[in-house]
Each structure stands twice: as C-alpha cells, then as structure tokens.
C-alpha cells in the first residue's frame, strides 16, 4: 500500500480507504478458444470511483472483472491494484483484500447472517470482539435490523440477502469492491431501491468499485465512469455517463445507449443545476420542485400543452421558470463529469 488514499490499514470505515485500479494491455485467451475473450484492454479507475463495465453478453465484462481478483488468470498484460501487480500476490490473500459480490450472492446456507458477514475478518484472524463489533456495524450500514444476525440465509428475502452480500464484501474494509450484476436477479422495484442504497453507501465508504451489468440504465445511474465493451473485450468508449450520452464515440455506442439517450441525459440533471428564466409571478402556472430531473420536467410540460413551469425551492418559494426550449438548450451544453 503506497498511495495517499490507502494510508488506513485498520478495519474501521471511519477512515475510508480506496485504491486505484489499472488494467494495462490485458489479454485473456482461453485454451482451445478460436478468439481471445479479451484482446487488449486498458482501463484506469481512480481511487474511490464507481466504474461500470457494460456491454452485450459475450463482451468479456465478467471475465475482465474476474481477472482482477484472479478468479481467472490473465494471458498477458498487467493489472495493478494500488500500483502493485495482482499477479505477484497469492490469490487467496489478494481476494481477502477485494470485496466480491455476485448475482446469485452465494451466501453460505449453513452459516448465520453474522457468521456469513464475519467470513473475511475471521480469515484475517481478527479478534472475536472486533469481529462482533464489525458485524453489528455492517448490518447497520446496509440497513438490516440487528435481529437478523442469528438467522440463516434461507430465512431472508432476496433484497435482504443481497444486502448481506454487500455487507459481507465490505467486512474487512477492502480498498476495492467487485460487483458482478449484483441486482440482476432482483425485481425492478427492489432493484431501484438497492441501487439508491448502493449510492448512499458509496457516499459514505468511498470505495473503488468495479460494477458489471448489461443494463445501460443501471450503468448510467451508478457509474462515475462507464466502460462500454464490445465483443472480444474491446473498449468502445470509456467516459462519464453525461459524456457518453452527449457524444457517443461510434454507432455501436449510440445504439447501445439507446435512441432515447437525450432523455437519459436529461435524467442526469436537476432543475437546480441549470440556469432558469426569472420568475414572472404567473400564479396560474404549475409548480415543480427544483430537485426534479430535467427529464421529468420535460415530461410534465409535454403532458400539459407545452406551458412553462414555475420552479420552487424546498420551502415553496418561486425561484424561476423553465420552458421546453430551456431544457432543449441544456442538451447543447458541454458534458460534465458528475
């Protein structure tokens, strides 16, 4: 550990730690396969950012993720975690420093929730009291009631199990978290809630996260940066969501992000983020909260005969007006990183 971001080596998340990750000319060729699963992938993820790997099935996104914690070994190239090559580490020791969450979660059915969460701390020989305190802390962090600690995974709902999976991955405060379609098997409503919770969690723990999904909307919602891969692990574009939607690098990316990319981009900004027209005291106009996304504001106006909306702040005071033209103009501005 040598970067500023990783000075903290003890478990408490009071001192968040995260490490940068870099893939350099990574190639993975399975024996007997005609073409490499990943041809030549280079990608740098700054410490504390969420990088979403997204692409159609067979694009190598899961393979790329599993190369990082050596669940699969690469054919050539280099993967650097906090500047040190993962190939020089013992796989089991490396993995204890990298949180790992998979779609099927893979909780241990024969262990209680508390024992599941305690897995990595125990592998690292933490003392009993410290493990117990950490388990309690983590259940609270992922908003699970403490009485679930002594239950078995079979007694929990899908959403609760997924939260336990995240808590288990965070147990030893790893500088990097790998998440392979963690919400893929969850129903859409619960999925949206889990995504929101992950964002809130990330705001507190600030980990470097590699998140794999095939859902571009999930990628846009969660990613600080999105890496769109095409078949053979070729990096089609690597950019923050706003830039990706504003300026797709090619036809493949444009198609992948969807013809509604303009609307998706509007969803990324709130009325409070744009320069509004001055309020004109039109009391007949409908009002809308400043926290509303540009997309929802546009939708409201389209449904209401293209009449401008009065934007109000949290106390209900009018702070400006918004029109469809203004929103359209917002799409012209240069993309910004979130």
């Amino acid at each position, binding site marked *: 550990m040598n970067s500023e971001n990783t000075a903290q080596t003890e478990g408490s998340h009071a001192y968040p730690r995260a490490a940068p990750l870099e893939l350099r000319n990574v190639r993975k060729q399975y024996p007997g396969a005609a073409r490499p699963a990943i041809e030549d992938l280079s990608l740098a993820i700054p410490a504390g950012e969420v990088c979403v790997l997204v692409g159609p099935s067979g694009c190598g996104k899961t393979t790329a993720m599993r190369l990082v*914690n050596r*669940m699969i070994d690469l054919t050539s190239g280099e993967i650097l975690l906090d500047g040190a090559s993962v190939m020089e580490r013992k796989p*089991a*020791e*490396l*993995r*204890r*420093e990298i949180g*790992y969450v*998979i*779609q*099927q*979660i*893979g*909780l*241990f*059915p*024969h*262990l209680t929730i508390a024992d599941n969460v305690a*897995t*990595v701390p125990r*592998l690292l020989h933490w003392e009993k009291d410290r493990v117990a305190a950490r388990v309690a802390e983590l259940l609270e962090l992922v908003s699970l009631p403490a009485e679930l600690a002594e*239950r*078995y995974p*079979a*007694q*929990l*709902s899908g959403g*609760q199990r997924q939260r336990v999976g995240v808590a*288990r*991955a965070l147990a030893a405060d790893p500088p990097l978290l*790998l998440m392979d379609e963690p919400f893929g098997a969850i129903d859409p409503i619960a999925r949206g809630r889990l995504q929101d919770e992950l964002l809130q969690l990330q705001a507190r723990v600030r980990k470097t996260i590699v998140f794999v999904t095939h859902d571009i909307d999930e990628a846009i919602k969660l990613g600080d940066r999105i890496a769109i891969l095409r078949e053979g692990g070729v990096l089609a574009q690597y950019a923050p969501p706003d830039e990706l939607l504003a300026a797709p690098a090619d036809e493949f990316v444009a198609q992948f992000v969807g013809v509604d990319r303009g609307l998706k981009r509007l969803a990324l900004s709130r009325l409070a983020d744009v320069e509004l027209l001055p309020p004109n005291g039109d009391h007949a106009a409908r009002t809308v909260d400043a926290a509303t996304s540009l997309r929802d504001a546009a939708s409201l106006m389209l449904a209401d005969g293209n009449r401008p909306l009065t934007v109000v702040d949290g106390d209900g005071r009018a702070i400006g007006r918004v029109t469809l033209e203004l929103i359209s103009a917002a799409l012209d501005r240069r993309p910004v990183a979130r």
Partner: protein
Amino acid sequence: MTAPLPLAAGAPVIPDFGRGSSCVRDNGAFCWGWVGDHWGDTLRPALLQHLALTGIAVGIGFVLAFLLALAAHRRGRLTTPVVLVTGLLYTIPSLALFQLLVPFTGLSRTTAEVALVSYTLLILFRNTLAGLAGVPEEVRDAARGMGLTQRQVLWSVELPLALPAIVAGLRIATVTVISLATVAVFVVNEGLGAPIYAGLQQTFKTELIAAGALCVALALAADGLLVLLQRALTPWTRVARSR
C-alpha cells in the same frame, strides 16, 4: 455340547434346565423367562459383539469411502472406476463373499469385517460424492472469491453442506451392516447371528425370536441416533422459510 455328568446319588432324574419355567418345558412360542435367564450369558454378549462388528465395519468403510470421495471430488475421472469396483463388491452375495474370503483370512473376525466393509463402500462413496457435488456453484464461487483456500472451501463450506447426504449414506450403510452381520456367523461365532443360528437348529424358538428382535431394535436405534446426530450438526436445514 457339554459332556454328560455322572449322576450323583440323590440327583434328580430329569436334568436341570435352569429354573425350568413351564413355558420352556412346554416349548412355548416365546418365553420371557428364558430371555431373562440367558440375557447375561447369551443375548447381551451377542448384542455387544454385533455392535462391535457393525461399528468397526461402518467406521473403516466410512474412512475409506470418504477418502475415495474426496479424491474423486477433486479428480472427476476417478469416479467411474471407484463406482465400478465398489458396485461389483456390492453385488456379490454376502454368504458367497464370506466364504470367498476364508482361504485368505481364515475363519476369523477379520474375514467378517472385510466383507462387511466392502458392502458399505458403494453407499458411503456415492452419498459423500453426491453431497459434495450438490454444493451450489455460486456458494463455491463466493467462497473462493472471498479468499478461502481450496482446503478451507472443502472443510468449512463443501463438507458441512454435504453433511445431510453423508449422514443419509451412513444411515443406510449402518442398517445394512447390522442386518448383514448376522450372516457373519458362518465364519465367526460372534454377534446376534450366533443365537439366531442356534435358534434355527432347535425347535425351541425363543432364542431365534429374541435375537432377531434385538437385531431389529439395534438397527432402529442406530438409525434414530444418526438422525439425531444430523439434526444436531445441521441446524440450518430445519429453519422455517419465513419469507
């Protein structure tokens, strides 16, 4: 049997058959009195020998089958040959197998144990292997991904999850061996097979019935104990699926 004693003066003309209850004298269908009289000198020793024969056979069989299953779990291509050999052993009629072994190990307890062990191998091997194979792939993947070594995955994840299948195998093997061990009387005069065999040779049937009933009771008790053992070891299999 015992040489006839010279009749002493004043001795009763009719030989003394123990307390000689009327049931035994009348050759009753089942005489509790006989059971009480011969518990100490016949039934109890036979039961204990039977328990030993079974325990040793299942114990050795389990160790062998367990090691074979671990090897086959790691190298799948070992499975077929092991199943073939243990399956072949399993099909040999028990009476024939005991006799086949006599030229090698004689009329001894070893002969009995070798034969009994060979009948446990197929069941214990297949159940242990099936239990290990039944561990969900995502659980194994998560275990590896969190940094458990191969040995830790085996001992703290795969084997605990295979326990129900392993104990199920132990139950079948134990009950089978308890029943088969009575046939061991043809090579060694031990176990409940001895009073059963003796009972077959005479018209008085209490000895046969009592020994047979003990054999059944032993099987039921052993099976019940294994069920309790499994419950104690696998609490997670009994939790209510509340949601």
